[in-house]
């Protein structure tokens, strides 16, 4: 697969079709992968793809990176789950299909966090998204590399996140409040969750608006709760459950539970699944007379 990937990247750069290939490369010790920006055909050899390629590189396609946009049209190495985010960016008018060349990679799953890697991809070290993946064959791409993957996702989604959602749904409001306040109390307001998210592309985040101050920026319980709730609400109907925020969180806040709960609620209310169709707008930014009103009791 890597041979194919490098070949394709080299061709794209040689022909001038793109100015940069955003992909994965090894770190110096070759034990972790890291985003790389390939600009010369001969550097295409640096590209790799393996289960350590956890990053969702679509974040670099957003307007948060004017320096990367200056490098010219981009090609991006993207797993199916990463492509979902690119699709949302297109649906929200942030990207045109022609702005980016998508090198889809057929993927057998990745590790939840790179430090768990011990040379073998075992189910226990894979994130929940991989166990239920329906895009191992990239669904929107200009070219696809890798061997076809034989994998059928389970009919009913499985994994710890779903178990935990059932558990939390069964809690009393007080218990649920305590559960989240305990987790949010660790938040250090580093905003890694926002920064790694390709759908958090606001030029000015609401937490930085201080006239008036909507969210207290201090890392005290009220400020932490406000931040995590508002981020969740802003991603409702948009989040693709790529899991980057939870992976990036230095204090292990289980953000995937929130993300997946949002996915389930939106699916139930609007029959919308984010990240599959660039022509369908996220439900919370459109008005539709057919919207359910069963929440009015």
């Amino acid at each position, binding site marked *: 697969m890597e041979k194919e990937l490098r070949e394709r990247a080299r061709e794209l750069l040689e022909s001038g079709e793109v100015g940069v290939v955003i992909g994965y490369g090894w770190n110096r010790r070759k034990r972790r992968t890291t985003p790389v920006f390939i600009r010369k055909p001969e550097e295409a050899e640096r590209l790799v793809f393996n289960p350590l390629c956890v990053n969702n590189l679509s974040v670099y396609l957003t307007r948060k990176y004017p*320096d990367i946009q200056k490098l010219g049209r981009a090609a991006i190495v993207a797993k199916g789950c990463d492509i979902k985010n690119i699709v949302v960016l297109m649906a929200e008018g942030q990207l045109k299909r022609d702005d980016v060349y998508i090198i889809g990679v057929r993927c057998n799953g990745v590790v939840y966090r790179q430090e768990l890697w011990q040379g073998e991809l075992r189910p226990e070290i894979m994130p929940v998204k991989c166990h239920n993946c329906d895009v191992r064959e990239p669904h929107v791409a200009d070219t696809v590399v890798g061997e076809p993957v034989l994998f059928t996702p389970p009919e009913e989604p499985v994994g710890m996140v779903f178990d935990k959602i059932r558990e939390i749904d069964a809690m009393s409001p007080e218990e649920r409040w305590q559960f989240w306040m305990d987790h949010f109390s660790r938040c*250090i307001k*580093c905003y890694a969750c926002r920064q790694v998210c390709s759908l958090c592309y606001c030029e000015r985040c609401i937490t930085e608006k201080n006239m008036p101050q909507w969210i207290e920026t201090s890392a005290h319980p009220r400020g932490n709760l406000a931040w995590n709730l508002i981020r969740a609400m802003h991603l409702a109907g948009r989040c693709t459950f790529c899991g980057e925020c939870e992976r990036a969180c230095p204090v292990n806040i289980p953000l995937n539970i929130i993300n997946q709960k949002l996915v389930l609620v939106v699916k139930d209310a609007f029959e919308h699944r984010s990240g599959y169709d660039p022509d369908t707008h996220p439900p919370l930014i459109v008005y539709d007379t057919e919207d359910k009103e069963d929440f009015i009791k």
Partner: protein
Amino acid sequence: MEKSLLKKEALQKLIDGVREKGGRFVAPSILARQVVYREVDCADQMVHDYIVPRNSIKEFLFPQTEPILRFRLMREGVEVEDVRVEPERTVFFGVRPCDAASCGAVRKVFTWDYIDQFYTRREDSSVMMTIACTSSDDECFCTTVGVSPEGKEGADLLLKETVDGDYLVEAVTDRGRAFVEEFKDVFTEPDGAELKAVATPEPIEGVNIDNIIGFLKDRSHYNSEIWAELARKCVGCGACTFTCPTCRCFDMVDEGTYIEGERRKNWDSCQFDSFTLHASGHNPRDTQFKRWRNRFMCKFNFYPVKFSARGCVGCGRCIRVCPVRLDITEVMIEVSEAARDV
């Protein structure tokens, strides 16, 4: 008694003793599947097999958020109430030498042109029980920046693990000696205990700190193209700065209602795009690589040059937490090389 033994069975007695006198006992413990320094009341909550905790001890001396004054709008004007810190004694057990070394560095900025008592009072009422490292990982690079895994810098007491899991205790400062004297029923005579081997990370090949400093001091390199190349992938979160033991930038915010509220001192990060944003809208560090360059400059040029203090202690936290694996040691190698090529 310059050296003594702290038996692992005696730890609970030490914790109880400290707490009975109104102090708090901070030690490595598990929280949300991570080893963190946190307050413990029971020896069972402590862990002994760890490399470097997720957080540094700075959050106990320089809290992430703290009120520094309170205000209230009255008919006659604004009433301002001072906040005075009266910290309890904090005993830090199991501090790694890199973390202990960071305290002296942080103190420099808080005692420079103004004595910041919010910091100094807390540090002055702390006892630092450093434990020499017996394990390290790929990210540890203390020896590359001149810190030793059995260093005494910043320590009041230096502990070394014995093969039996006890600790050989060496008093480093008067405060450490007084602490051993105060709890002399906890510490016992060293009986020639056999020590575990200290884990010393190999200095990273290709890094030359003098060359790095020289390169950074030369202003013609400030706009070098290498910065964009090295830091393009940075996503601009504050994880590196907030877990860093020597990063100490803070911001002031007023929070509350229009009638009353608090002025709070909060951690800030030079990686945030609003960090140097001027009221005019101009930002001298308008793109992310310039913000990352600032962090590197601060670690190896601005801070050590201005304060004669460490900017980096080599704990490796910034590498472990970085979501895009922007490894400061890789940049150190690249800059060392660039300096050689000049």
